[in-house]
């Protein structure tokens, strides 16, 4: 038959464990293991980071990435120059038109609004 009083006193007796004499040593051993685990984790992160970095650098050199980056950079510079030149030409053409600058800007704004509207519709439909 269940005896709640006895069961409660049993729980209390289990909870009231006497303090062991070497409890401080025990705590120090747990802390040492925690520190050791933490140091190992840090060492592992460093090792993996270094290994990853070394692999990345090796890949960069073996794939001639620097040469390719240089080539791409030159090509970009050339395209940028061309773009600026085209814009200058466009500005000259606009100035030649029999319209005011305001009209051109309004047309551009309307174009942007139309594009935004089209995108909104497309998003709603899909």
């Amino acid at each position, binding site marked *: 038959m269940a005896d709640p*009083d*006895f069961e409660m*006193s*049993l729980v*209390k007796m289990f*909870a009231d464990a006497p303090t062991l004499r070497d409890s401080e040593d*025990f705590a120090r051993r747990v*802390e040492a*293991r*925690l520190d050791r685990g933490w140091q190992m984790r840090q060492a592992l992160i460093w090792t993996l980071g270094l290994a990853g970095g070394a692999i990345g650098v090796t890949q960069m050199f073996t794939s001639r990435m620097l040469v390719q980056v240089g080539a791409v950079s030159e090509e970009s510079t050339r395209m940028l120059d061309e773009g600026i030149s085209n814009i200058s030409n466009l500005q000259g053409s606009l100035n030649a038109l029999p319209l005011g600058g305001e009209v051109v800007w309004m047309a551009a704004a309307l174009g942007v609004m139309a594009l935004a509207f089209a995108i909104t519709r497309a998003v709603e439909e899909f």
Partner: protein
Amino acid sequence: MNASKTAGLHDVELAALAAAGDRAAFGELVRRHGSSVRGLLRRMGADPSLADDLAQDAFLAAFERIAEFRGEGTFAAWVRRIAARLYIRRWRREGLMDQALDDQEETSGGEAIAASRIDLDGALKILAPAERMCVSLCYGAGLSHAEAAEALNAPLGTVKSHVKRGLDKLRHKLAPAGGSSDGRREHG
């Protein structure tokens, strides 16, 4: 954070600091509750050296999972549950579980304990290993009968009967000398 600052904090505050990576705060929790966890493992039947090893493992596991501790129960009870499960796992790995659950022999013949100073540690020694394990799990680690059955991979009825037999024996042995054995004794 240094030891003097952690000493005045509540367990829940220390656990929150530990969850943020403060190992000194966790060390204070170990200082406070190490004996309780080691004591439970010894009462479950582990020898002192195994109890210490498992208690260390339990605290390390608790540190890894400290974010799961919400302060709903006590920190000590939470770690005791972890430790008890580790001990059960050890038992099962060493194949002692089935043998113990079938074994109904009392470990010290059931003779009366000296009436002058009867304590729980002494009383537990008269229980069969399975009774001792089930009683410790339910009253020391705070597992329900169902949780204990699941942890032990044993039928619920088996666990209940071990607990009942163990309680009956403890009630008898912990009763005051010459007094009734109905267990209605205050254990301060």
